[in-house]
């Protein structure tokens, strides 16, 4: 051990020891008595206002030596990676106990060797949320200067001081109480400025933004250095599917979040951000209030740089009607949040599924003749002499498959009226509930369940039903499930949609009883796009005007699969959209699944 090392270890300041403990706790690296290339600086971290450039300035002058400064968020220490031990020794000689770091206001910094290196802080994610596009240098420096002069932030009526930011609105005044605008009160005297409109036309011209989303509202935010904005998603019902943000004055890191996934995205100065599809509808975005951002350095540790004053121009299209038809329900305010407890759910289904089918059985059957080709295809694919259960068999139309007289079907349904119709066709049919199936387990070659699960009113019940269906199958047995899809428009469209205006679909609501609860659900308009995951679908008999409301939960893309994703012993063979329905085919890969609790 050199004299110098002995000296410095003897002289270790208590603040250095504290910083060393903290770093050891974070990264498992200890202070070292022997010299190394890695130097810990106490009291010099991002928490203290440390930045890469200010630390580099305080390091000893040298021509060809490269120092790498490692700064982690929320830490009071910094680590300097030195090119060699001599350089590290010089850093300690210069900085230990010195007050030369300008941001510390004369407070001393303490320096000591570390046993080894620590990792770099996590940087911006390499992946972007789906639908997010960032065009670097989307605006020239000249345009930037011109745009920054467009706002005065001095109009008290349209501008107000939010926390650490100034805002100004064009086209419509953004009302922070409703996170939207008053459609009836446009700012006629203050349209979107001409240079901006010209720029937006360019985006349309280049095919980056659909004409139908051409903005009519602009909010300009001027963020003080270090200011942030809480996580938010632009109100679905208020603004259309494309949002354009032009960032001026300074770089910033924006955090995008969806469920448990968080992506930090560097938004460079003079860039244009286009938020469409999932990034616009299903992700929130926020700016963390802090004085610095970590940005890539090209080589070595990310640079901690001070935030500057940033001005953002956010362009949005105000929808003419308050109805969002996106396929991302989690943040969609056009979708009603709907949840029932188990007993209320059973009551709702009794009144608005079972009794309705009982009442409409014969008329319903008259309208259900045609077999669905994909169902027939599934049944035709089954081995000779397969034993098949049709859960929710209705009038039995799927149990009479041409040229497959070898198949044995047992049909079951809740509706005795529909079962009577099955009997007239000499089909095997019995009455039961799909949540209490009266069949032996692990004996059937196939199970089909067409247009049934969407009548169950909680996610738990839908999942339990699928578990019961699976329990009937023997090993290698196959299950086909088909449910109504929220999105009626995939892959060339559905025969169901007849060009109805989706906005009229939200026009009517009905209040229905569900056990103790009273719930209000939108009443679906036939042949229109759905407005909500949980809806009432009217059934009107032609001879009188008695309308029956059937409850439906219409499925989002991937929802059926997500219900079964953690069930072991099954394999997903296929998942497809078929004429406005979501379908999955599952194969059982073991004889018995874990016993279902009911």
């Amino acid at each position: 051990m050199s004299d110098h090392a002995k000296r410095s270890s003897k002289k270790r300041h208590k603040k250095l020891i504290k910083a060393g403990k903290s770093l050891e706790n974070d990264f498992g690296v200890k202070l070292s008595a022997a010299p190394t290339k890695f130097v810990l600086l106490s009291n010099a971290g991002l928490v203290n206002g440390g930045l890469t450039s200010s630390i580099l300035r305080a390091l000893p002058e040298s021509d060809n030596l490269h120092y790498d400064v490692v700064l982690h968020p929320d830490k009071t220490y910094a680590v300097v990676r030195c090119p060699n031990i001599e350089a590290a020794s010089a850093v300690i000689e210069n900085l230990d106990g010195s007050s030369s770091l300008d941001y510390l206001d004369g407070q001393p910094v303490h320096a000591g060797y570390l046993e080894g290196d620590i990792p770099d802080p996590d940087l911006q994610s390499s992946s972007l949320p789906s639908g997010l596009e960032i065009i670097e240098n989307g605006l020239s420096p000249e345009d930037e200067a011109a745009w920054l002069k467009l706002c005065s932030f001095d109009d008290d009526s349209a501008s107000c001081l939010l926390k650490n930011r100034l805002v100004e609105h064009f086209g419509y005044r953004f009302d922070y109480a409703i996170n939207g605008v008053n459609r009836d009160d446009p700012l006629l005297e203050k349209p979107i400025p001409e240079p901006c409109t010209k720029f937006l036309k360019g985006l349309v011209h280049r095919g980056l933004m659909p004409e139908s989303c051409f903005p009519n509202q602009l909010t300009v935010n001027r963020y003080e250095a270090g200011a942030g904005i809480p996580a938010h998603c632009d109100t679905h019902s208020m603004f259309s599917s494309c949002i354009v943000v032009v960032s001026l004055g300074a770089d910033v890191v924006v955090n995008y979040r969806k469920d448990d996934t968080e992506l930090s995205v560097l938004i460079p100065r003079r860039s244009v951000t286009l938020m469409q599809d999932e990034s616009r509808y299903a992700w929130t975005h926020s700016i963390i209030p802090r004085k610095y951002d970590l940005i890539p350095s090209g080589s070595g540790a990310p640079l901690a740089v001070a935030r500057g004053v940033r001005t953002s121009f956010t362009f949005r299209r105000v929808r003419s009607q308050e109805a969002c038809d996106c396929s991302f329900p989690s943040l969609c305010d056009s979708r009603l949040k709907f949840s029932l407890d188990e007993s209320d759910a059973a009551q709702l289904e009794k009144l608005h599924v079972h009794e309705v089918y009982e009442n409409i059985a014969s008329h319903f059957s008259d309208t259900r003749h045609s077999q669905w080709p994909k169902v027939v295809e599934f049944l035709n694919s089954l081995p000779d002499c397969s034993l098949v259960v049709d859960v929710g068999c209705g009038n039995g139309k799927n149990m009479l498959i041409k040229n497959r007289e070898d198949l044995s079907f047992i049909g079951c349904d809740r509706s005795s009226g529909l079962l009577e119709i099955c009997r007239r066709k000499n089909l095997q049919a019995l009455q039961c509930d799909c949540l209490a199936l009266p069949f032996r387990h692990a004996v059937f070659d196939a199970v089909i369940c067409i247009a049934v699960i969407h009548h169950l009113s909680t996610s738990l019940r839908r999942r339990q039903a699928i578990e019961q269906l699976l329990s009937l199958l023997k090993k290698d047995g196959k299950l086909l499930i088909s449910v109504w899809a929220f999105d009626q428009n995939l892959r060339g469209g559905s025969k169901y949609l007849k060009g109805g205006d989706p906005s009229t679909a939200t026009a009517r609501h009905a209040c229905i009883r569900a056990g103790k609860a009273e719930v209000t659900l939108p009443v679906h308009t036939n042949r229109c796009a759905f407005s909500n995951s949980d809806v009432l679908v009217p059934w009107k008999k032609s001879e009188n005007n008695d309308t029956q409301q059937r409850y439906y939960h219409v499925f989002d893309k991937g929802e059926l699969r997500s219900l079964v994703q953690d069930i072991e012993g099954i394999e997903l063979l296929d998942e497809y959209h078929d004429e406005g329905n979501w379908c999955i085919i599952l194969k059982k890969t073991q004889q018995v699944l874990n016993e279902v609790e009911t």
Partner: protein
Amino acid sequence: MKLLTHNMLTSKAIKGVQTGFPLNIVVKKTKTVETEFSSEFIQRMLPKLDWPAFLKAAQTLGVGSQLPDSPPTETTDETVLRSIHHALVEVEVIEGELICPETERKFPISNGIPNMLLNEDEI
């Protein structure tokens, strides 16, 4: 309700019931509908059948006298397979009851349709 169907039914959806199989049958009215015999079909169904349950049900319906005590092997002659065919898929219970072997819960059969619905408090 054919005996093929009966052989697949249980009452174990009732709370507390262990196997609920086989369900006992009370016969009030039966019907026989001739269907095309296929020895391949019978051979394929045999592994799925619970033979003692089938035998007992067939005896209840009075069509079990020709059936062997244990499931036949592949070499069984056609006469036996035909009697299985008759009991399994030609005779139907039109009116009657199914009875849970553990709780005595009755499930009515009407117009050939067993009503296996349970009340909320039974599940």
